[in-house]
């Protein structure tokens, strides 16, 4: 008898068959210029999106319907979970997250192909084939090795429930966004390979690839930021980024993707770095597959897990095959593509972009090396090694600092050559600001590294403000606008340039937050008897007792801490908590108590409670607010760039700034 959930499987299997047809039809249509087959391929891709949405809906419905005959639903939910966690349970396991991955890919593919259906037939044709092939891999794994619609021999009375660590509002958005970020790099990758195959890496190609790239970059950025936000609020070690292997692999495609975002500007304006840009796309896509695979296989926590996970093998095979095929293609095409690699001036803007790319790739390489070094070391029969956060801080710290300086200088450079006198003139004010900040910083704190970091931020900030200022000044002269109006019309007229500056400005704010919260953090761990007090920074903390609260499917153990601030009469209450979920008694999770003051966060993690005392880890995280402010602004700025401008204006902009 066919049950309702079997339809989910049928949808999956039919989308697999259709995708095979679409991949072949599209390839043949490019070769034979057969418009009929081409339409077939496109319609197939729309149909696949529909089938995948239906398959995903069946799983969502099974969760809502609490169908405990379905293995996946039983594993990840139970009757006492609130609805939003029940739906979030959808992507909390391997099968569901792969289903999520392929469903979002099919939707994004359908939308993109629909928008660009009448664009260059070769590029779109090849892209359709590549997108279908990537999709085939994921759905093949789903259909044959990780079927989310697998039924249990008999129905269970209740399910296991969601992993406690995932029961956090942050978890409702972070994993889907991060997976979507990984997934969405498939589109620029497909366009990149299609461009190679059709020997067309020019203006038309860039116009096609620009928006999908921005979408992927935005999703990936959002996923990383929310991951940090979640870690900060749940893990309780006082930070948001620990250079953990899983974080690193999510960071890798972001690094190469950001490099690509800069290198295509060189392709666009100077027709240089074409193959290099394609290579960055290949790296970004491969690293996204690698990331999805790492998150899903647990290979990095121990090499031994790897041998036991069969889905891991498929991922590794797909990773290796797609990488090998792409690299071969680049090598084959390197002769036929006339890539002019001429860099005549060190102070040309393209040279600035080249250095930017070299640094991004260096950071990616160092991060990749630190992450896989333990595996390599063990595979070679040496001792097992673990690489800690200090490695990444020591290697990436200086590289990021150079990148920060470059962000200040780069936008002042002209294409092909920069007049050094004018450059120095433009840099006069920023360099003065930098020097003053550096001297004040060292004078006050004596800490050279920190002062250098903050002064670098002040340098970049000044150059960006200066650029806006001069741009606005010219406008106030040529039109009758006032300064304020001029600044906003700059954004309208040259959205890419000034929107890009807004992204840079957000990065500066983010950098100040990162430098402040990592460099100026103070913390103490203390066991406090009831009604005792302790001081940290300008805060006095009194521990007044703990209590347990019983809830439907969990028990909360909360401690009360009364915080008073020097010279302030009012007090605030903090309630760090530990939550014990039923079925997961050995896996309690924390709710860190945080008071975000203007200049710093007061952050308390409850480590243990006994009859008459409790143990806390207390942190003061200066400027950490700016991390969240900066990264949110980054997304807003990206949306401003993304917002469609009228075609006429776009054309104006392009011709003016080239």
């Amino acid at each position, binding site marked *: 008898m066919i049950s309702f959930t079997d339809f989910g499987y049928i949808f999956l299997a039919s989308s697999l068959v259709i995708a095979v047809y679409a991949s072949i039809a599209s390839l043949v249509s490019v070769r034979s210029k057969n418009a009929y087959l081409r339409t077939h391929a496109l319609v197939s891709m729309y149909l696949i999106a529909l089938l995948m949405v239906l398959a995903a809906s069946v799983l969502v419905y099974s969760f809502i319907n609490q169908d405990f005959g379905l293995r996946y639903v039983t594993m990840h939910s139970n009757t006492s979970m609130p609805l939003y966690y029940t739906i979030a349970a959808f992507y*909390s*396991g*391997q099968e569901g997250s792969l289903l999520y991955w392929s469903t979002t890919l099919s939707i994004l593919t359908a939308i993109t192909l629909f928008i660009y259906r009448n664009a260059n037939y070769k590029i779109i044709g090849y892209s359709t084939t590549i997108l279908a092939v990537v999709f085939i891999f994921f759905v093949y794994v789903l259909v044959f090795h990780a079927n989310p619609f697998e039924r249990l021999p008999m129905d269970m009375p209740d399910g*296991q*429930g969601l*992993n406690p*660590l995932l029961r956090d509002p942050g978890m409702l958005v972070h994993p889907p966004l991060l997976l979507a970020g990984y997934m969405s790099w498939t589109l620029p990758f497909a366009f990149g390979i299609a461009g190679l195959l059709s020997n067309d890496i020019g203006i038309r190609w860039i116009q096609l690839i620009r928006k999908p790239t921005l979408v992927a970059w935005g999703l990936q950025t959002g996923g990383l930021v929310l991951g940090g936000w979640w870690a900060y609020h749940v893990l*309780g070690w006082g930070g948001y980024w620990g250079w*953990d292997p899983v974080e690193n692999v999510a960071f890798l495609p972001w690094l190469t993707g950001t490099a690509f975002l800069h290198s295509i500007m060189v392709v666009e304006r100077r027709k240089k*770095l074409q*193959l*290099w840009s394609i290579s960055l796309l290949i790296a970004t896509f491969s690293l996204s597959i690698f990331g999805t695979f790492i*998150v899903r296989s*647990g290979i*990095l*926590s121990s090499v031994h*897990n790897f041998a*036991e*996970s069969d889905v891991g093998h498929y991922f590794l095979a797909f990773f290796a095959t797609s990488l090998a095929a792409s690299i071969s293609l680049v090598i084959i095409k*390197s002769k036929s593509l*006339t*890539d002019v*690699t*001429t*860099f005549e*001036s*060190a102070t040309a803007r393209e040279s600035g972009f*080249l*250095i930017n790319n*070299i*640094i991004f790739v260096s950071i990616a390489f*160092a991060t990749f*090396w630190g992450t896989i070094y*333990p595996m390599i070391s063990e595979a070679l029969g040496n001792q*097992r*090694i*673990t*690489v*800690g*956060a*200090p*490695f990444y801080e*020591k*290697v990436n710290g*200086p*590289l990021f600092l*150079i990148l920060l300086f470059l962000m200040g200088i780069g936008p002042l450079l002209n294409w092909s050559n920069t007049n050094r006198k004018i450059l120095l003139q433009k840099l006069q004010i920023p360099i003065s600001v930098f020097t003053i900040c550096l001297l004040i910083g060292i004078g006050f704190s004596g800490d050279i590294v920190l002062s250098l970091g903050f002064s670098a931020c002040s340098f970049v900030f000044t150059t960006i403000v200066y650029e806006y200022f001069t741009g606005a000044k010219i406008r106030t002269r040529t039109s009758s606008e006032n300064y304020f109006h001029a600044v906003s019309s700059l954004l309208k007229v040259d959205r890419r340039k000034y929107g890009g500056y807004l992204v840079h400005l957000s990065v500066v704010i983010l950098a100040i937050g990162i430098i402040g919260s990592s460099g100026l953090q103070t913390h103490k761990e203390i*066991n406090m008897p009831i009604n005792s007090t302790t001081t940290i920074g300008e805060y006095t903390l009194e521990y007044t007792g703990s209590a347990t609260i019983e809830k439907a499917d969990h028990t909360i153990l909360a401690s009360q801490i009364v915080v008073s601030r020097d010279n302030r009469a009012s007090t605030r209450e903090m309630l760090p908590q530990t939550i014990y979920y039923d*079925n*997961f008694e050995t*896996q*309690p*999770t*924390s709710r860190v108590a945080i008071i975000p003051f203007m200049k710093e966060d007061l952050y308390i993690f409850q*480590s*243990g409670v006994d009859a008459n*005392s409790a*143990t*806390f*880890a207390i942190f003061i995280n200066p400027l950490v607010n700016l991390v969240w402010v900066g990264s949110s602004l980054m997304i807003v700025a990206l949306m401003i760039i993304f917002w469609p401008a009228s075609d006429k204006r776009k054309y104006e902009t392009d011709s003016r700034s080239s």
Partner: protein
Amino acid sequence: MSGPIKKFNKRLLIGILVIIISTIYLITLSLDAASAIYMTPSELISSSTKPEERVRLGGMVQPGSILQQSDNKLEIEFTVEENDSRVLVEYIGATPDIFGDNAIVFVEGYYSNEIFSADTLLTRHPDTMEPLSQEIIDSDSNDSY
């Protein structure tokens, strides 16, 4: 891979080489300083680890072995075991959520006189989304989450 190089500014080339070389130099320099040798209790006991070598020890907390000092509750002692090998661990500081009997822990520090002095204590990191108890109802799947 990048086609024919026609003209390349010397200073730019030097700049790129400096970045690449210093990255590689920084990597080799920091890798040893920031890494620890990973061992299980049996490996640690049978090895000739020097007291100044940084070790990461992984194993399970022996049930009932956690002792808290009465005067300073931040000072704890516990035994990490793996089959029949046991190592006594000293640690000062707050403990993570999942720490307790039978928890899988990773401690980092130095080993001498049969005592492991740990300065970091991590429980199994939440790097997988699967519940640990999957093994219980999922005996046919061999993903070892």
